[in-house]
């Protein structure tokens, strides 16, 4: 066979991840956000969120190039209005049934809304969020199927309820496997293989040791969770792969979290910007990527998706996606 001569051989490379944002620049952005939110009685919120995300993404660097957040306040504002509309309709129905003296039906509507709205929000948020994230001009994307995901979510939710919550770890892992497994990085495909039993054991151990050590083990538990999130993730591109690995130790987490708490207390909260930038810097510094994917070859495959309704719903319901 002819030997392909390309810059990307099967050599192992390790792209570096780092966070370059300065606390003072971020502070400036948060201050403007706050000022405008107060002046506009909170209506500036979507634009504030866009400004914040844009800064954080543009300050994160991989292999010498920064990430980019392309979402706009306008998109998120429209999404916000739609999300508000959905929640208002649900609220009105619950209210109506209560007024008609059939609160049982209201409760049913409420439960049904949770069961349907939450997965729809997660789906929409992922579609919007990843489509608006780029690196070197290449879009990320989410290819999950909404109906499939809603079915998966309802099934797992029911199992968790039936087992009085014991199934929670398995549910969490199944959902993450599905969501992360449908994230695209251009022509690269993400992959996550979390195992419910392992995750359950880890959390059980973390929970009891934290109680026994009066909370001190909590930092190590945190490091375990972070490691579990990172180490089970892979990026595939053709027959090539990138593995992710966390190098954050419990001790390092303790240092970070204690320092952050002190910073917040002694600056009376003004240090919040620095707390966030420190945290992101810490996380980025503690993720190692290794493999043989040639980043140059990742191609533009994902479409643009500008509907932020799911993103805003998820934000309003306080579901953390990433």
């Amino acid at each position: 066979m002819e030997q392909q001569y390309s810059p990307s051989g099967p050599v192992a490379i390790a792209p570096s991840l780092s966070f370059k944002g300065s606390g003072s620049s971020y502070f400036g952005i948060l201050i403007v956000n706050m000022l405008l939110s107060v002046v506009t009685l909170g209506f500036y919120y979507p634009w504030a969120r866009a400004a914040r995300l844009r800064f954080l993404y543009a300050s994160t660097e991989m292999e010498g190039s920064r990430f980019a957040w392309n979402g706009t306040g306008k998109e998120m504002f429209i999404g916000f209005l739609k999300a508000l509309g959905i929640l208002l309709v649900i609220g009105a129905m619950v209210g109506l049934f209560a007024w008609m003296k059939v609160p049982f039906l209201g409760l049913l509507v409420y439960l049904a809304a949770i069961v349907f709205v939450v997965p729809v929000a997660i789906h929409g948020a992922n579609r919007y969020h990843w489509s608006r994230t780029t690196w070197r001009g290449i879009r990320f994307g989410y290819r999950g199927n909404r109906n499939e995901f809603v079915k998966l979510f309802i099934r797992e939710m029911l199992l968790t309820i039936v087992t009085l919550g014991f199934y929670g770890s398995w549910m969490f892992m199944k959902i993450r496997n599905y969501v992360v497994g449908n994230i695209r990085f251009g022509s690269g495909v993400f992959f996550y293989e979390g195992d419910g039993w392992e995750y359950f054991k880890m959390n059980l151990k973390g929970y009891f040791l934290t109680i026994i050590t009066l909370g001190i083990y909590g930092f190590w538990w945190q490091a375990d969770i972070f490691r579990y999130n990172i180490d089970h993730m892979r990026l595939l591109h053709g027959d090539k792969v990138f593995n992710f690995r966390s190098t954050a130790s419990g001790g390092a987490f303790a240092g970070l979290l204690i320092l952050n708490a002190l910073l917040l207390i002694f600056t009376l909260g003004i240090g919040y910007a620095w707390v966030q930038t420190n945290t992101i810097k810490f996380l980025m510094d503690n993720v190692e990527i290794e493999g043989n994917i040639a980043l140059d070859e990742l191609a533009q495959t994902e479409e643009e998706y500008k509907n932020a309704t799911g993103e805003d719903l998820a934000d309003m319901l306080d579901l953390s996606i990433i």
Partner: protein
Amino acid sequence: MFTGQFYNHQVAKSITITVLVVEAGLLLQVPGAEDGVVQPVYWLFADMQVDLTDRSFIRITHQGADAGTLEVSDPAFVKTFLQYYKPSRITRLEQLVVRGGLKWSLAIVLGMIALLLVGNFVVLPWCAGIAAERLPHSFDRQLGEMARNSNPELVDTAASALLTAFARQIQWDTRDSLTFVVSRRDIENAYALPGGYMVVYTGLLKKLKTPEQLAALLSHEVAHVTRRHAIRALCSNMSSMLIINLIFSGGGTLTGQLFSNAASLNSLRYSRQYEEQADLTGLATLRENHIDQQGMLSLMETLQQLDHQHHIPEFISTHPLTDRRVRYVQQQIARYPATAKQHPAMAALFQQLKESSR
């Protein structure tokens, strides 16, 4: 000439290129389709989207036929670029701040503090004034009654009748129907509730030496009523509460707060401005009734002397007697001298009051 990274939106390939900032845009030396061939591309300022992250990193995106992204991590480039790229093109406010650096952020923090201070000391009192104007007088009476019921006084009927007779000697310029009450308690204080309910404690009566002092005391308290200081103070308290609620997104009904404040009306501390206004209005009342204005000054002196004894009389703690206030009263008396007459009826009633308060 600067170097930056160029991305063509097709593959994640980072191409190092040279960039030139020119009059109306950027000149990029982008590699062409063939190897080794460099093709100059011209991007107009008008067609580009600029993301200024901080003063050392800028991202410029160009849409259209030759879509692409340029990223430059070079403070010198950012500086040069911003000299040519007009600030009016920057549509995102936070980017203006990034452009200005920490100085701008601090300026905005100071601006916000200034805004809050102006809001608190100028806008709120103004709004409170307007709100107070719009509240009907019946509201004053209602509020005064609530305060009275929540804190009933031990009324000395005989002394109250004497005090009422004394007060009737004075022409009050007010729409409110005034009620004067003596309460038999050893507290050196007096207060007025909205709607015109005045209470003088025997503790204070004992310390007064002349009828002019008592007239001055009453005219000061009545002025609080006619000027509706209690309503104004409540309205401004409430609007502060409103702002705090707004910021911390709490709730609560406003009238509920107004009425919950009613209980503390008799120990309400007025601002210095209200005290001065009450003093000046009180002086005018004394002048109009041909009562010696010096009564106000000697009242203050008497109270101040009490101050130097073992304890601070309560009247002083609710009506702080500053040197400024005394000076103000002196100046006012000098500015508006008035003839004072003898008031034998008042003197007689005062004498009886003094005796009854023993």
